[in-house]
């Protein structure tokens, strides 16, 4: 049920993000989702791609520090209150969202959001109990 996310450390300098997308593009890696968390000095780029192994390899070859983290992809109803319902369930159970961002494409008419939880297993079973679709890693990559 987990999705593997790749993260890259970037200095806050012009052109660094383009360098990453260039490397991935040259390697024919497709980006499914991404987010950037930034500070005044540096940023962390988080990516869901269609080929993790290849992406990790080409980024490392180009001198980037690459990390791997498990995240959860969740279907969210594309209507008012869709996200709120999910967050309410998690909040009641005391599960913390470290960060979240959304996939570029829709699935089954739903938006797909990527979550990083402090308690992944707890979050996944809780969401399932509440009838919320958690999307499998392989499915996210091939969407």
């Amino acid at each position, binding site marked *: 049920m987990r999705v593997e996310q790749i993260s890259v*450390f970037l200095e806050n300098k012009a052109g*660094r993000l383009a360098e990453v997308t260039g490397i991935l593009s040259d390697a024919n890696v497709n980006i499914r989702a991404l987010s950037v968390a*930034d*500070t005044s000095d*540096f940023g962390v780029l988080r990516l869901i791609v269609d080929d993790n192994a290849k992406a990790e390899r080409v980024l490392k070859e180009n*001198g980037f*520090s690459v*990390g791997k983290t498990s995240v959860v992809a969740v279907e969210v109803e594309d209507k008012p209150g869709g996200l709120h319902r999910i967050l309410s369930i998690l909040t009641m159970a005391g599960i913390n969202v*470290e*960060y979240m961002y959304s996939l570029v494409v829709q699935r089954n008419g739903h938006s797909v959001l990527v979550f990083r939880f402090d308690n992944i297993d707890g979050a996944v079973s809780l969401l399932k109990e509440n009838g919320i679709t958690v999307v499998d890693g392989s499915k996210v990559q091939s969407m």
Partner: protein
Amino acid sequence: MILDIGFETMPREDLEDIQVRRLQATVERAYYNVPFYRANFEKSGVKPDIIKSMDDLKRLPFTTKADLRDNYPFGMFAVPMDNVVRIHASSGTTGKPTVVGYTARDIKTWAELMARALSAGGAGRGDIIHNAYGYGLFTGGLGVHYGAEKLGASVIPVSGGNTKRQIVLMKDFGPTILTSTPSYALHLAEVAEEVGESFKNFKFKFGIFGAEPWSEKMRTELEEKLYLSAVDIYGLSEVMGPGVAMECHEAKKGLHIFEDHFIPEIINPETGEVLPYGETGELVFTSITKEAFPVIRYRTRDITSLNPEPCICGRTHVRMNKVSGRSDDMLIIRGVNVFPSQIESVLMGFEGVAPHYQLIVDRIDNLDVLSVLVEVGEKLFSDEVKILQDEAKKISKNIKDYLGVSAKVTLVESKSIARSEGKAVRVVDNRKI
């Protein structure tokens, strides 16, 4: 004013007589009371009785900062602890500080020499001395303080920091002498301006600046911004503290070394060969009156030259020119001695940080700013920004706790630090001194 006419203007021949006698006594005491000196002399095949004239000094072996460190904390003391009344310490190269001790007589001698120094710098009875050198293990604050009291001046023991309050005190108390590091003095001028005050309206006549090297250009700047006459003071805790050498305000051209207490030599730092007057090399000191912590041919690592020409002030003591650099990699940041190796040992405490780091020193608004660039390798990296920020904060805090100097830690991409021949360039000093 020359405080001690007898010693400070003594003819050179008489001075040398005194130096030889004091040197003989110091060498003998060091040899018999400090195991390190005895072993060091034996290694060089010399005994204390080889000192017949000043020329024999060069036959003695050098003492280095590493020797002091190896004998941490009290191994270099030449008197029993019963007779040590004061301990000071400065930062060392690998974490352990360099510890120095003083007998009651040493403290008295130091106060006398500091009084001489303050007097040479234009201070006297009736002056109010605003002493912004740090008080504590650092010798600056207490050294000036005792000298000021000995001189009979009024001393404000304000120490470093709390700059806005210092401006208020300067305005209200009307001090006439400022003692501080030159960079802090310039910072004071800026803060004064920020709060709508000006040194123009203060009563300062002289500023006695030391604990870090400064240039003639900086003298001009200090004099223009602080409306005072700026003079240089030199010292290091291993030799005594401030008051080893002092510029006279009459000439402002080199610092008179108090040669009745300290014998200077200039050596080639590579070969150890003694260089004649006028040539530039590493300054070496031998103390000849200290009881608790005598030093014999101590290598300061400061680069300068000696000038024996008579001075218009009347002092006969040789002058050292302003220190122009170091023969090792020590940095002086806001008066604090920092060795890159000390920062490295802090970074070693964090998994995955060393050896990929770089120190950058800038002078921003006249204050030294130390930045530490740390490469984020796989081990340090996290996809969560707050974890990375916490790590940077922790590194910064440890540097502060351990070295007493604030550092801004900046995380950079791996392999982004410039390397020369595969080795990262450790230190970039952008300060223009």
